[in-house]
């Protein structure tokens, strides 16, 4: 009996000893016992590593009991990484998403509703531009805070405008198409647009076309106006007024083409400016003009910060969000990255400084705060990406000559309605 029981007793003794040692360690060092950890995942902004380190250091001062881990993923890797982390049960506490991706997550119940937090702390809500903040609302709940904001605008090559005898930016869609045709010559084209994330939608919206019915249940774009717009875009693409890369390129190709100095107008969002300027020595205030498109409509493509539903410490994550979106930190971020953050006070300070240091960049960013009540292409659709995927290939079919505009619009309507009905 003694021989049989001894190993068992020894194991019990060893376990008890280990447990006692752990407890003793925790009792001596309560910080170890209460140490928590949150992580935040950013979207392709690894160049701001120094800033994020400063954030973490500052937060450590506020909450010594919390460790913060930062991760960054490039755009195409982001959903892959985040979704696998969600499946594994270890989603990053805070995520930074671009465009409409947050909607898919929020609609599926994967994001923390920040409305109660903002209701408790109204001063936090008041920090932000209402129109931009409103972009992250789904079914009346706010799921994200602005990280850095952007919307589409019109860049124009003043030299090409002069050569074509044009005095200033176009005032209507028809004029824009007319200008584009006038500047098209040899290797030069008059107009180009970015096409991802509904960035081309203002071209339709400025002509009164609505994508969906107000209840977002059905397509409403099959109208004579939409066919007319698409017809104009098709003709423009056919006669060389509109560069074909508009409809097939994503980011590098259209911006690169504009940077080459061969394109009269570029419809893009504000980050494109810094990319283009980095490649185009010809760009200065005398050669590049910036303005809102006729009618003032623009598609936002901002970056937001939200909290994963799977976060074990949502309250701490909220504290972190509060800190990084404060005036102090948004101002630092704006200065480093030349972006606006949606924080009203710091954006004003940033613009005031920039008007002196870098007037052209200031002019670009100034457009981002104008007519923010005319944001479009930001429908609160849980299946936004699928609607986009149903609609856009038909636009390509028309502008690149496979279908007539009327056919393409009709087919797009069928496809979009099918997605909405699913």
């Amino acid at each position, binding site marked *: 009996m003694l021989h049989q029981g001894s190993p068992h007793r020894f194991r019990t003794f060893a376990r008890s000893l280990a447990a006692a040692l752990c407890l003793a360690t925790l009792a001596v060092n309560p910080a170890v016992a209460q140490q928590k950890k949150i992580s935040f995942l950013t979207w392709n902004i690894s160049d701001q590593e120094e800033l994020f380190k400063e954030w973490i250091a500052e937060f450590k001062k506020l909450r010594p009991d919390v460790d913060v881990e930062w991760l960054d993923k490039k755009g195409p890797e982001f959903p892959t990484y985040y979704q696998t982390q969600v499946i594994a049960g270890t989603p990053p506490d805070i995520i930074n998403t671009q465009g409409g991706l947050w909607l898919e997550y929020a609609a*599926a119940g994967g994001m923390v509703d920040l409305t109660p937090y903002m209701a408790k702390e109204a001063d936090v809500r008041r920090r932000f531009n209402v129109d931009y903040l409103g972009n992250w609302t789904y079914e009346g709940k706010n799921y994200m805070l602005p990280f850095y904001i952007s919307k589409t605008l019109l860049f124009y090559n003043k030299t090409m405008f002069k050569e074509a005898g044009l005095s200033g930016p176009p005032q209507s869609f028809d004029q824009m198409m007319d200008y584009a045709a006038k500047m098209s010559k040899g290797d030069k084209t008059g107009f180009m647009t970015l096409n991802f994330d509904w960035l081309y939608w203002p071209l339709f919206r400025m002509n009164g076309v609505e994508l969906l019915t107000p209840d977002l249940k059905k397509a409403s774009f099959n109208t004579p106006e939409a066919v007319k717009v698409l017809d104009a875009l098709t003709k423009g693409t056919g006669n060389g007024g509109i560069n074909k890369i508009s409809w097939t390129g994503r980011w590098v190709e259209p911006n690169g083409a504009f940077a080459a100095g061969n394109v009269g107008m570029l419809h893009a969002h504000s980050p494109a400016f810094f990319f283009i300027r980095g490649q185009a020595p010809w760009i200065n205030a005398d050669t590049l003009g910036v303005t809102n498109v006729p009618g003032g409509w623009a598609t936002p493509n901002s970056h937001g910060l939200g909290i994963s539903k799977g976060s074990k410490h949502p309250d701490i994550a909220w504290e972190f969000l509060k800190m990084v979106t404060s005036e102090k930190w948004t101002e630092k971020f704006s200065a480093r990255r030349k972006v606006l953050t949606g924080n009203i006070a710091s954006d004003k300070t940033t613009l005031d400084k920039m008007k002196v240091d870098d007037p052209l960049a200031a002019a670009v960013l100034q457009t981002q705060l104008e007519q923010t009540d005319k944001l479009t292409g930001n429908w609160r659709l849980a299946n936004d990406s699928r609607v986009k995927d149903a609609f856009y290939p038909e636009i390509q079919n028309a502008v690149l000559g496979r279908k007539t505009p009327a056919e393409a619009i009709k087919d797009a309507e069928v496809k979009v309605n099918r997605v909405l009905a699913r």
Partner: protein
Amino acid sequence: MSEAGTIQAPRTPGRRNVPRRAGAAGSKRRRELLLIWVFLVPSLLVFFLYRVLPLIWNLVLSFQQFSLFGVTRFTGFDHYVDMWNDEVFWITLKNTLIYMASAPVGIALALAVSLMVNSEVRGRNIYRTIVFLSYPLMTVAVGIIWRWLYDEKVGLFNFVLRSLHLIDKPLPFLQSFELALPAVLLANVWQILGFYMIILLAGLQNIPQNLYEAASIDGASGRQQFLRITLPLLRPAIFLAFVIGIMTSFTSFDLVYVMTQGGPSHSSELLINYIYRAAFELSRIDYAAALTVVQFLLLVVLTWLGNRLSGGDAGAVETD
């Protein structure tokens, strides 16, 4: 009672120790087997964890309505029915089969190049290096280079074609529904040509020279030698290149992604690109799983067909 594993030999004086020897041999064999398994198990475990298990899970997922954040439920064949009615699936499947059909073209070209660089031509090592150089290049870099080559305004192809007065207007290679896929295919063939060449070159160099000498003495022409000696003896190398070509076609994600992103309007999109988009852009992981099952089955069928066409013993280990 005899011991298990021993051989009961007749009790002749010369064979007195045979049972013991047989027992020792059996034990040695068991030890060898054990050793083989010890070496095999880690690899098999990794294979099981990273290949078999995901495959099984993928199959299960294809019958479910998967929710990233909520409850996953069984939906039977819904995704397969969806697929049947999905226009994009059929387009991408057709494109994948066309893409796959470029493998034989690439192999034929590589065979011609291999024959050239295998002959006594001067500077053949330089030619081999030049042809092979495209293969180790990063596919993304290849995609970007070719994208510029195809550019409508400043691309080299359009410049050459216009300079030779072969075309009046520049061709929008990557913006055209008809040209986008062939344009990507050409870039793919260019990149993989060097790899095919190495495989075929190795096969050519394994053909005994005396066969050609004997054939020459018998009066066989160069064409006859190629058809009766080179081609039949190159069969294993051609099969290997073919299988790799097919596999590459099915997984050639990056080149399409970089050059056209599958556009315009899905005209150059492959099944693998659609699977990626369905999972990570359209958030339809379950549907992507069903697409993957179809792709996997297609690959199995095609590999089996390839094996049958090559005589049915490809990959067999020769023991003599």
